[in-house]
């Protein structure tokens, strides 16, 4: 597992030299290499501006490293954060804010739709049509009792009516 670490460490140490700026005697090969693909703007920079940028970066690095060294090099106990540090430790409560402002209202909206729109609007006409079929079915259910004698009576009534109509039309 350590071989990839060593290879990457070599890259991390020396990859910067592929784009060494002119001020350190380089030729910015990567910028040069990429230039056909990119539309770069090369606005006015100057030697002194570049020195300023480099100086500020090195100073920032030095100060940051020094403070970390002072506070943590010789071991330190886990502090109890208060004030701004606590705010930062809790990530400015951004997750909680998103939860309160977006996730919760979104869920509430979902529940609202589930309770109102779903049953009455989108499912409404489907439910009405099934209810109509049910009514239709229960109305006819009255005639379906399951006794053979009842169906025999239906037959007799039907045959009598048919005979009546036939005799009427034949006259």
């Amino acid at each position, binding site marked *: *597992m350590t071989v990839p670490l060593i290879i990457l460490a070599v*890259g991390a140490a020396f990859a910067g030299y592929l784009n060494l700026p002119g001020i350190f005697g380089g030729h910015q090969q990567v910028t040069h290499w990429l230039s056909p693909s990119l539309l770069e703007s090369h606005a006015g920079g100057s030697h002194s501006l570049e020195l300023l940028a480099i100086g500020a970066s090195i100073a920032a690095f030095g100060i940051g490293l020094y403070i970390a060294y002072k506070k943590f090099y010789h071991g330190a*106990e886990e502090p109890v954060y208060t004030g701004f540090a606590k705010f930062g430790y809790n990530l400015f409560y951004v997750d909680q804010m998103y939860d309160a402002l977006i996730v919760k209202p979104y869920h509430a909206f979902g529940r609202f739709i589930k309770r109102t729109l779903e049953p009455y609007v989108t499912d409404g006409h489907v439910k009405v049509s099934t209810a109509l079929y049910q009514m239709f079915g229960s109305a006819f259910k009255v005639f379906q009792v399951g006794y053979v004698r009842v169906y025999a009576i239906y037959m007799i009534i039907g045959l009598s009516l048919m005979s009546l109509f036939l005799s009427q039309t034949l006259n």
Partner: protein
Amino acid sequence: MEHTVTYLGLIPLMPLIGAVVIGMMHMFTCTGKPFSEKLYSTLAVIGPVISTLLAFKAFLAVKAMPEESRYLTQKVFTWFSVGELDVSMGFLADPLSALMLLFVTFIGTLIHFYSIGYMAKDENFGKFFAYLNLFLGSMLILVLGDGPVVMFVGWEGVGLCSYLLISFYSEDRDNVLAGNKAFIVNRIGDLGFVLGMSFLFWAIGANGFDYLSLKANAHNIAPAYGLAICLLLFVGATGKSAQIPLYVWLPDAMAGPTPVSALIHAATMVTAGVYMVARFSFIYALYPTAGTIVAWVGILTALLAAVFGMFQKDIKKVLAYSTVSQLGYMFAGVGVAAYSAGIFHVFTHAFFKALLFLGAGSVIYALHHQQDIWKMGGLKEKMPITYYTMLIGALALAGCPFLSGFFSKDEILYMALANGHPGIWVVGVLVAGMTAYYTFRMYFLVFH
């Protein structure tokens, strides 16, 4: 010079084949006796290794061309053709994608090798490598695609794989939630990308919807559309590359196995947004307003994440926020129209962040999955190789003079100053100091 080649498509195809083969093997044996880890790991690294070699080949071929016409293309097939929209599954290797290819394949392959050790004895060893191969393949499609639509295939692919890998240990509900969060937040960003792409097509898509045609027609975009396209595409980038307001998924993405974090942070996934902005530099360069917004969002993200990084106690969270912060620098770079500086920082960051994550992985592995830096200390003697390699990584991240991170970060800050954005420079320098502080806070607590 012949611009059409036949091997570009193989670069993403190799890991994708690996993903299918390993995935099938895992699927058919997951209830019975599994194949040996040796077989899985051999199959898992074949694809990435071949891709790396082909990437070198493509890079050298592009390099051999005359400077003004450096590109290789391959049209594999016509994907679909509807009305004026004609999209083919095509690949393009120009200097930008060739450089991205080199380090994505190289670092991706190293992480594959590292994972063989890290994931040993995991019951889902095969599944892990199937996903890892799929991840790399998707990223390579994203980088190599010859137009926004093919890029979008890779874009969605890496989104899917990050979801699968973040929630890899799915027995724990928190991991599943972290995977969901990554997926949903990315979907929000993707909406911006899709809308941006649609506007782009609406504006100038009729004359070909690949980068070369779009670049030639970019000056025909109506200004209002142009700005909208830039900003919508940037919304996509904030999702994928974890910028304000969509950065929230990346720190939670630590739920996945550590090599996955290394892959997400270094080679695949989060660099996609920066690459995309650089890829569309032919539009962004025309709209300095969009660039300024991108730069400010970037540098403020850098500041916010650096503040968070200073107080975290989970070693992986510190590194996660440092990634968000460094991505902010990259966007500041591309925002101030120093696209090559932004991409160069992507390049150097890939090395030192992969190094730091793999080092952190070794520490976590050695301490039986302890991640709290306050409970660590004195590992310097116990793990000398990790100690020294991570020292290089930490120095590079902190911007120590003459290591990789120094040159790339300094280039961005200098370009911000030179291109007339002193405010961005001031915040950038402040963040540089904070970076040195939180990096060595972590380093000293772990090793001393």
